[in-house]
C-alpha cells in the first residue's frame, strides 16, 4: 500500500515538475517557437520583408550555434534553441489579425516578432494584448502605437518615426540654411500622413518662414505618379520630402528622374536607406537619406555590427540594410529580457515583461533603450547623410549623428506636441 502511495506521489511530483518547467520556461529539448511576420510578397518584400527574413534566419542559426558576440554568447535564449514560424505580412491588417490569432492559438508560438506596416502594427497590438502573447514590433514607424494606447504584452524595439522628421529637418537646415520652400509626396496611410505631419511641424518650428508648396498623398501602391510629378515640378520647391517606400518609391524615382524633377528640387528620403543599392542611377547625388537609427550604412563599427554584416552577407548579395538591423534589435532585445528573467529564477511571460520594460541592450546599431511607452518603446539616436556616386556605386557622405534627446520626445509627451513646443531635449 505504502509502495503504491509512493508511486502515486512520485508520479504526481513528476507531473507537477513538468508543468512548472513548462510554465516557467522551456525544457532544454523543446525549442522556443518564434512567429516571425514579415513581408514575403508584395511591394514591401524586396527592400524590407525579405532582408528582415534573411537576417532573422541568420540570427536564429547564429544564436542556436552560440556564435553571437558578447553579451549574447549563450545558445538560443538562455540555452534553449529557437525555431522560426514565418508568416507573410502581405494581405492587409484584417488578414494579419487572423494570422496572429492563428500563430498564437494553433501554431502555439511562444513569442511573436514582426510587422513592418504601420497599419498592421496598429491593428495587431490590441489583439496581442487580448491573446496575452509577448509581441515585439520590429520595424513599423507610426508613433501612435504607444502614444495613443498603452500595452502590457506589446513592445517595439525600434524607435518610432518622429526622429525621421526631426533629424531630417535638422540635417536639411544645417546643409541648406537658406531654404525657402518645400513640398512633399507621401503615401496616404498612417505612416505617410504621420511622417508629413511631423516634418511640417518640425519645419514650422525650426524654419517658420519656409513655405509649404504642395502635399501630394497618392494611395499606397499607386504605381503611376505622372500628375504628382507635374505638380511637384510646377511647385519649384527647394526641397521635396518623401517617406515613400517599397515599390512606390522605386516607381516614383523611375518616373521622376527622366522628368528632371531632382534638378529643380533636392530630395529627402526619410526611409531611403534600403534602396541605395537598388536604385543606382535613379537616386541623384545629394539626396538626403535616413535609416531611422544608426543602422544599415550608418551603423558604426562594433563586434555586433561586424557579426550581423558577416552572417547576412553569407546569405545575400549585399550587406544588411536597416530592416535587417531592426529585426536584429528585436531578437537581441527579447533574448536579453528572457535571459534576465531566467537569471532571476523564472522566465514566464510576466517575468519577461518585467525584464523587458525599461531595458537597455546592445545591438548592431548601438545601445537601445526601452524608455518610451512605459518601457515598451525603444529609443536610439539616429543618423542622416547625403548620397554621392563613387565609381558607379551609391554611397553616403557628410554623415551626421543625432543623439536621442535631440530627436525623440521624452516619456509622456506626444511627438507632435513636443515638436510644436520647440523640441526641448528631454532627460534620458
Amino acid at each position, binding site marked *: 500500500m505504502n509502495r503504491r502511495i509512493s508511486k502515486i506521489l512520485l508520479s504526481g511530483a513528476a507531473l507537477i515538475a513538468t508543468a512548472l518547467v513548462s510554465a516557467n520556461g522551456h525544457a532544454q529539448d523543446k525549442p522556443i517557437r518564434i512567429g516571425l511576420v514579415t513581408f514575403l510578397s508584395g511591394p514591401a518584400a*524586396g527592400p524590407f520583408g525579405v532582408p528582415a527574413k534573411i537576417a532573422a534566419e541568420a540570427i536564429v542559426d547564429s544564436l542556436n550555434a552560440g556564435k553571437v558576440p558578447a553579451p549574447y554568447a549563450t545558445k538560443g535564449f538562455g540555452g534553449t534553441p529557437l525555431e522560426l514560424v514565418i508568416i507573410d505580412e502581405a494581405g492587409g491588417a484584417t488578414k494579419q489579425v487572423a494570422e496572429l490569432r492563428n500563430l498564437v492559438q494553433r501554431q502555439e508560438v511562444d513569442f511573436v516578432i514582426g510587422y513592418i506596416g504601420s497599419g498592421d502594427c496598429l491593428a495587431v497590438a490590441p489583439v496581442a494584448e487580448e491573446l496575452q502573447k509577448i509581441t515585439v514590433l520590429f520595424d513599423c514607424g507610426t508613433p501612435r502605437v504607444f502614444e495613443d494606447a498603452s500595452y502590457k504584452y506589446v513592445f517595439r524595439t525600434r524607435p518610432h518615426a518622429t526622429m525621421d522628421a526631426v533629424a531630417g529637418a535638422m540635417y536639411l537646415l544645417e546643409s541648406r540654411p537658406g531654404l525657402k520652400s518645400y513640398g512633399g509626396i507621401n503615401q496616404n496611410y498612417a505612416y505617410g500622413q504621420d511622417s508629413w505631419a511631423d516634418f511640417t511641424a518640425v519645419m514650422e518650428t525650426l524654419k517658420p518662414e519656409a513655405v509649404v508648396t504642395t502635399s501630394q498623398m*497618392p494611395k499606397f501602391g499607386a504605381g503611376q505618379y*505622372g500628375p504628382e510629378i507635374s505638380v511637384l515640378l510646377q511647385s519649384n520647391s527647394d526641397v521635396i520630402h518623401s517617406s515613400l517606400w517599397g515599390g512606390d518609391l*522605386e516607381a516614383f524615382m523611375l518616373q521622376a528622374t*527622366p522628368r528632371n524633377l531632382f534638378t529643380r528640387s533636392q530630395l529627402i528620403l526619410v526611409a531611403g536607406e534600403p534602396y541605395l543599392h537598388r536604385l543606382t542611377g535613379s537616386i541623384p547625388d545629394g539626396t538626403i537619406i535616413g535609416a531611422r537609427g544608426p543602422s544599415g550604412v550608418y551603423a558604426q563599427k562594433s563586434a555586433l555590427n561586424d557579426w550581423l554584416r558577416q552572417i547576412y552577407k553569407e546569405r545575400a548579395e549585399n550587406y544588411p540594410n536597416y530592416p535587417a538591423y531592426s529585426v536584429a534589435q528585436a531578437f537581441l532585445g527579447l533574448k536579453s529580457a528572457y535571459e534576465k528573467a531566467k537569471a532571476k529564477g523564472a522566465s514566464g511571460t510576466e517575468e519577461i515583461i518585467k525584464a523587458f520594460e525599461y531595458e537597455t541592450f546592445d545591438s548592431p546599431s548601438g545601445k537601445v533603450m526601452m524608455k518610451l511607452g512605459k518601457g515598451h518603446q525603444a529609443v536610439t539616436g539616429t543618423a542622416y547623410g547625403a548620397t554621392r556616386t563613387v565609381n558607379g556605386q551609391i554611397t553616403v557622405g557628410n554623415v551626421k549623428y543625432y543623439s536621442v534627446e535631440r530627436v525623440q520626445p521624452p516619456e509622456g509627451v506626444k511627438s507632435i506636441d513636443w515638436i510644436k513646443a520647440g523640441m526641448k531635449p528631454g532627460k534620458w
Partner: protein
Amino acid sequence: MAQLLAVLIDGLIYSSWLFIIAVGLTLIYGVMKILNIAHGSLYALGAYSAASLAGFWIKQGYPPMGSYAVMLFAAILVGLIAGPVIERGLLRFMYGKDEIVLVLVTYAVFLILEDFVKLVWGVDPYFISQPYGLLGSFVIGDLTYPNYNLVLFGAAVIIGVVLAWVLTKTRQGKMLLAVIHDREMSGAMGINVGRVYFITFTVGAMLGALGGALTAPMISVQPGIGAETIVLAFAVVVIGGLGSLPGAALAALLVGIVRAAAVHYRPELDLFSIYLVMAFVLIVRPKGLFSVQEARKI
C-alpha cells in the same frame, strides 16, 4: 493656364494607360460575358516577361532600341501561351454556367497565377527602366515628359482604332458582334462560337499582357501589381459599361482627366477621384456610359 495644360497632358497620359490595361477586360466581357479577374495576372505576367526578356536583351549588349520589339514579343508570347491554356484548359468547361461561377473560376486562376509569378520570378522586384528614358523627352511649358508617354498614347489609339475597325469592318468582327448579340442564334446560323471564344480570350490575354509590358519600364515589377491593376481596370470597365469598347475609352479619358485635376487642384481627393466618377456615373446610368441594350428573350 500652364496648370490646366498640365492637367490635360497628365490626364491624357494616364487615360492612355488606363485604356490599355482595361481594353482586354472589356473585350472578353463583351464577347464571353466573363468578368476575367485573371486579367490582373496576365498584366503581371506581361510585365515580368517584358522586364526579364528586355533586361536580357540590353544586358547582352544588343541595340537598346530593340528592347521595344522584345517587350511587344513578350506580351504576344504571354497571350499566346496563357490565353489558350486558360480558355481551353478551364473556361470552356464552364460556359453556360452562371456569371458568378465564372468570376470565381477566374479569381481562382488569378490566385494560382499570382503564386506562379512568385515561383518563377521570386519576390525581388525587376527593373527595366532604360526603355522609359531611351526616346528622349519633350517639353511643354515648364514641364518635361519622356517621349515614352507618347508611345503609351499611340499604343492606346492604335489598339482602339484597330479593334473598332476589326469589329465593324471585317467579316470576323461582324461574326463576333453577332456572338455578342446572341450566342445561341449565332451558333444556329453556323458561326463556330467556340472558336470565336478561343480567339477573343487569346486576344484579350494578349492585350492584358501588353498593358503589363508597356508599364514595366515605369515601375518596379514585383508581386502584387496585378491586384492593384485589376481594381482600376474593373472600375474603368464598369464606368464605360461592361463590354463596351467606346465606353472603356471614354471612361478611361474621364477618369484620367478627373484624377489629374484632383492631383493638381485638390490632392486630398486623389484617393477617391476614380470612385467618385464611378459613383456619379452609376447613379445617372446604372449600367455604365455605353451599356449594351439587351434584347429580351422570350
